C-alpha cells in the first residue's frame, strides 16, 4: 500500500540476525504506536520481565506519512518497549522523537525497526538502503551523543561538517543504480548515561530530538547498543500526489502563522518576551518564554510548517524546546541553553532532573538531609546552586553513576525511596511526582485531563491538544498582565466543534470543581486517549501542531483544522478512504491493546492513584482553565484546589464502565476486547488469569 515501504526490520542483537516482518500484517494498526504495540504483544511472550532483560523488545516505528509532505508528520519516530522509568512498575511504555530519523528509515526501505536480544560487546547498527551491518562500537562507547553522531557521519558518508567541500552528493559509488544523497545519515544515539543503564537515559537524534520518557536510553545501554544510523535513497509511493500537495497548500494558506502578515501578533516586544507565541504558533516559538539572546534561525523537523525550535549561533539550546530550555539556569537564558545542551550531550532525560529534580535535591540540602555532613553524604556543590558548576556536577555524577549519581541515575523517585524520603515528600508535595513517578507537568488538581490520562496510561501523557486552548490562552495573557486575548466561550466553541464523535459537547471542557468528575470528563479523556493513540502516536502528527482547535491565523472564526486535516493527508498518501472517526475507532483499539499489556503486567485499579499531595495540598499559584459558572463560560482561576479522592474513585468507575472494562479491576473484558476484534488478546489475558 502507498505510504508504507512494506517491511519492518527485525534485529536480534544476541545472534546478530537480521530478518524482516511484512508491514501488511500490521497495517490495520495504522503505523507508529499501533504497529509497535501489536508487534510487542506478539514478540514478547512474558510481559512481566524486566526492561533490562535481553528479551525486552524495543520498537522504533515510522508512519505512512513519515518522509512525506504531510505537515509535522514527516520526521517523527515512535519508540516503545518495557521502560525502566515508570514507578513502581516498569510499564510497557512509549516515547517519541522528532527530526528526520523515521523519514530516512523509510527512504532506506523500512517501516520500522524491532530490536531484541543483547550484543556481546558495544555495537552500532549501520543501515544504508538494504545493507544492514552490526558495527563495532568500542571506539564510540563513552562518547557523548553529539560526538557519536559526528563520528558516524564521518564513517558512513565522510561529511561531518557543512563546509563547501563537504557539500556533496554522497554514495556516488553506488549512486547510478541506488541513488545519491546530499543528506547526512540520521543517527539516534545514547550518551554515557544510557550506557550506564540509567532509568533516565534518553535517545538523542541530532542536537535536540530526544526520546526521553521511559528510559529507553538505559535499555539501549543494557543491550550494548550505542546508536542506529540510517541513510536511504528510495522513494515513498504516494497515492494522490496532487491531493497531498493541495492539502499542504490549504494548511499553508489558512492555518500557518504568516511571518510577513500575521493575523494575530504578539502584543509586546516579541524579541524580549516571546511567551505569546504559545498562541500564535510563530516560528521559533518552542523556546517558550525565554528571549532570543543571540542570532538564530527557526528550525523544524522534516516537513514541519511551524518550525518551533531554533538553531543558535553558539549552538547552545539548538533544537531544544520547552522544558529542555527551562530546565536550569536561573534568569540567564544563555545558561539555560547551555544546560540544555549539556543534558542532550550526556543523553539524560531532561524532565526528571528539571525543577522537580534538582530543586528537590536543593530543598533536601537546605533541610540538611543532603550534603557533605547530611544524612546522605554528597559533595555536590550545592553552594553553587543556580550556577553552571552545580548542573555540570549533577549531570556528570548521573552520567558516571559516581557517588550520589548512582542513586540519581535510577531517577529521583527511586533515589528518594532508597533514602526513606519518598512517602513523606510525595505527601507534602516537596516532591511533585503525581503519577508513575513522572514529574508534575500541568496541574493535576485543576487541568485534570492531563493527570487522568497519565494515570490510566503508563507515563506523563505529554499531549497538549486541549492544553494550548483551555489553559495557555488565559494563562499567558494573565502572566503578561493582559486581558485574555480570546474569550473563553469562543475557544470552548472551537474546541467542542472539532471533537468528533462527541462534537458539540461543550461540557467536556468545563474544568470547574464539580464537572471534573463528570461523565463529560469521561468523554474528554476517552477522546484524548483515542486521538493520541491513532492520529498522534500512530500516524504521528506532531503534538505541537495537532490537534488544532483554536487557530488565530484562521480569522475570523479562528476555527482550527481538526478534524478535517487528519484523514485528508492520511488518505492522500495511502489511498485509503478512512474518516476521522474511523481513525478514532482504531485509536480505541490500540488503547485497549495497551491496556491489556498493562493488565498482563499486573495493572489493577488500586494502583491508579495519584501521589497524596494531589489530594491534600492546595494549589498555591494562579492557574487558569475554562469553566462554566452560573451559565457563563469563564477563565477560572483554580488556585486553592485539591483533587477529591473519593470523587476521583467514582469517576474511575464511570470511565471503566464507558470503556466496557471491569470496574473491580480496571482491566479490559473479553466482551469489550472481542468488540474491538482483539479476541486473541483476550485469550492471552485469560491464559494468564488477568481478565
Amino acid at each position, binding site marked *: 500500500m502507498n505510504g508504507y515501504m512494506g517491511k519492518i526490520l527485525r534485529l536480534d542483537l544476541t545472534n546478530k540476525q537480521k530478518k524482516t516482518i511484512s508491514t501488511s500484517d500490521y497495517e490495520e494498526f495504522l503505523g507508529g504506536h499501533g504497529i509497535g504495540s501489536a508487534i510487542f504483544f506478539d514478540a514478547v511472550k512474558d510481559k512481566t520481565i524486566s526492561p533490562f532483560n535481553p528479551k525486552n523488545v524495543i520498537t522504533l516505528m515510522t508512519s505512512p506519512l513519515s518522509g512525506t509532505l504531510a505537515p509535522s508528520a514527516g520526521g517523527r519516530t515512535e519508540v516503545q518497549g518495557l521502560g525502566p522509568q515508570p514507578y513502581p512498575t516498569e510499564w510497557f511504555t512509549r516515547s517519541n522523537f522528532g527530526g528526520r530519523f523515521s523519514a530516512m528509515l523509510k527512504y532506506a526501505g523500512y517501516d520500522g525497526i524491532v530490536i531484541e536480544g543483547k550484543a556481546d560487546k558495544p555495537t552500532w547498527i549501520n543501515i544504508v538502503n538494504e545493507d544492514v551491518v552490526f558495527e563495532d562500537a568500542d571506539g564510540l562507547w563513552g562518547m557523548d551523543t553529539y560526538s557519536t553522531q559526528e563520528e558516524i557521519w564521518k564513517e558512513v558518508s565522510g561529511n561531518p561538517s557543512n563546509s563547501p567541500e563537504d557539500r556533496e552528493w554522497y554514495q556516488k559509488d553506488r549512486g547510478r543504480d541506488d541513488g545519491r544523497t546530499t543528506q547526512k545519515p540520521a543517527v539516534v544515539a545514547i550518551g554515557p548515561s544510557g550506557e550506564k543503564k540509567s532509568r533516565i537515559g534518553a535517545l538523542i537524534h541530532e542536537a535536540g530530538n530526544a526520546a526521553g520518557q521511559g528510559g529507553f536510553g538505559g535499555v539501549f545501554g543494557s543491550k550494548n547498543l550505542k546508536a542506529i544510523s540510517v541513510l536511504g535513497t528510495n522513494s515513498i509511493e504516494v497515492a494522490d500526489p496532487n491531493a497531498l500537495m493541495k492539502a499542504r497548500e490549504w494548511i499553508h494558506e489558512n492555518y500557518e502563522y504568516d*511571518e510577513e502578515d500575521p493575523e494575530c501578533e504578539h502584543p509586546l516586544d516579541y524579541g524580549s518576551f516571546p511567551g505569546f507565541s504559545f498562541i500564535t504558533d510563530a516560528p521559533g516559538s518552542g523556546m517558550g518564554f525565554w528571549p532570543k539572546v543571540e542570532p538564530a534561525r527557526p528550525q523544524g523537523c522534516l516537513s514541519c*510548517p511551524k518550525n518551533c525550535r531554533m538553531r543558535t549561533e553558539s549552538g547552545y539550546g*539548538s533544537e531544544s524546546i520547552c522544558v529542555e530550555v527551562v530546565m536550569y539556569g536561573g534568569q540567564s537564558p544563555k545558561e539555560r541553553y547551555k544546560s540544555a545542551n549539556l543534558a542532550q550531550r550526556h543523553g539524560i532525560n531532561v524532565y526528571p532532573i528539571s525543577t522537580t529534580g534538582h530543586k528537590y535535591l536543593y530543598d533536601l540540602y537546605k533541610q540538611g538531609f543532603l550534603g557533605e555532613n547530611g544524612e546522605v553524604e554528597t559533595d555536590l556543590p550545592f553552594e553553587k546552586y543556580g550556577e553552571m558548576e552545580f548542573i555540570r556536577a549533577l549531570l556528570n555524577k548521573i552520567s558516571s553513576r559516581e557517588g550520589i549519581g548512582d542513586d540519581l541515575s535510577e531517577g529521583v523517585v527511586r533515589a528518594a525511596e532508597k533514602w526513606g524520603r519518598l512517602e513523606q515528600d510525595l505527601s507534602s508535595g516537596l516532591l511533585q511526582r503525581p503519577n508513575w513517578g513522572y514529574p508534575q507537568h500541568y496541574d493535576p488538581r485543576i487541568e485534570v485531563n492531563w493527570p487522568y490520562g497519565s494515570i490510566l496510561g503508563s507515563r506523563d501523557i505529554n499531549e497538549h491538544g486541549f492544553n494550548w486552548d483551555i489553559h495557555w490562552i488565559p494563562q499567558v495573557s494573565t502572566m503578561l498582565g493582559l486581558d485574555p486575548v480570546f474569550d473563553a466561550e469562543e475557544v470552548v466553541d472551537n474546541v467542542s466543534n472539532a471533537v468528533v464523535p462527541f462534537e458539540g459537547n461543550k461540557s467536556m471542557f468545563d474544568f470547574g470543581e464539580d464537572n471534573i468528575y463528570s461523565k463529560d470528563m469521561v468523554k474528554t479523556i476517552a477522546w484524548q486517549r483515542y486521538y493520541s493513540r491513532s492520529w498522534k502516536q500512530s500516524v504521528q502528527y506532531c503534538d505541537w501542531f495537532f490537534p488544532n482547535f483554536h487557530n488565530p491565523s484562521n480569522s475570523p472564526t479562528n476555527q482550527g483544522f481538526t478534524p478535517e486535516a487528519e484523514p485528508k493527508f492520511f488518505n492522500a498518501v495511502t489511498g485509503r478512504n478512512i474518516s476521522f472517526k474511523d481513525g478514532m475507532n482504531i485509536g480505541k483499539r490500540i488503547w485497549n491493546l495497551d491496556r491489556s499489556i498493562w493488565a498482563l503486567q499486573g495493572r489493577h485499579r488500586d494502583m491508579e492513584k495519584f501521589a497524596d499531595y494531589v489530594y491534600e495540598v492546595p494549589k498555591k499559584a494562579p492557574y487558569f482553565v475554562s469553566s462554566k459558572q452560573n451559565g457563563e463560560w469563564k477563565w477560572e482561576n483554580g488556585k486553592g484546589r485539591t483533587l477529591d479522592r473519593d470523587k476521583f474513585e467514582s469517576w474511575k468507575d464511570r470511565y471503566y464502565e464507558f470503556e466496557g472494562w471491569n470496574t473491580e479491576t480496571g482491566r479490559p473484558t473479553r466482551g469489550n476486547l472481542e468488540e474491538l476484534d482483539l479476541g486473541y488478546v483476550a485469550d492471552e489475558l485469560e491464559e494468564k488469569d488477568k481478565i
Partner: protein
Amino acid sequence: MVNRRDFLKGIAGGAGAAVAGFALGSSTDLMKEVEGRTFENLKSMVEAPPSEAYLLVDREKCAGCRSCMLACSLVHEGKENLSLSRIQVIENPLAGFPDDLVQEQCRQCQYPECVAACPTGALSVDEVNGNVRLVDEEKCIGCQRCIEACDQINNPARAAWNHEDEYSLKCDLCIDTPHWEENGGPDGKQACVEICPVNAIKTTDQIPVQIGQKGYKVNLRSSKWKELGFPVE
C-alpha cells in the same frame, strides 16, 4: 528550443557576445575564487537567452524543514524522495547558525554548462517557456554529463540523478509537474515557493549576479522577522 547546433553557432559568435549580457558581480567577487562561477571561467562560456525567472533563497531564514524538497519530488516525480529533489537543503544540526545550513537551488545559469554538456539536446533552453533550462526526460540517455558539468562549478551539483527512472533532474521552475494541477514556469507557481512556511524562497525576473553566490543567496527577511527576534541584517 536552442539545440546543440545553435550552441555551436553561439560558440562561433565568440566570447564578446557572451560578456555583453553578463551581470557583473562585485569587484571582491571578481578578485577571488568564489563558489560558483568566476569571471575567468565565464569568459570562455556561451551565453544562452536568459531565463525569465530565477529562484532566490535566504539561508539565514530557512528553517531546514525540507518541505521544499518534498514538494519538489512530489509534484515532479509523484513520489517522496529527498534524493529526487531539484533543490537541496543541507544541514549540520550540530553547527552554529548560520553555518549550519545551506539551500542549494539551480541557478538557471546565463551560461548553462549543463546545457552545453548534453550530447543529445535533452537538456535545452526552452524558448516556449521563458527560456528555462530543462531536461526532456524522453531524450535523456543518462550519461550524467550535465551533472558532472554542474559539479565543476557547484557544490553540490544542482542537476540531480533519478536512479529509479534513470534520467537527469534539474529545476524547471515547475513547468513540467505532472502530479500538480497548478501551472508553473516563470509566470506560474513553483511548488517550493508555494510551500515554504517561512518564505525563504522567492522568484525574480531579474538576472542575478552570476559570479559567486550573492546573486542567488539573498535577504528575504522583513521587519516582521526582526519582531520575531531573529536577525534581519
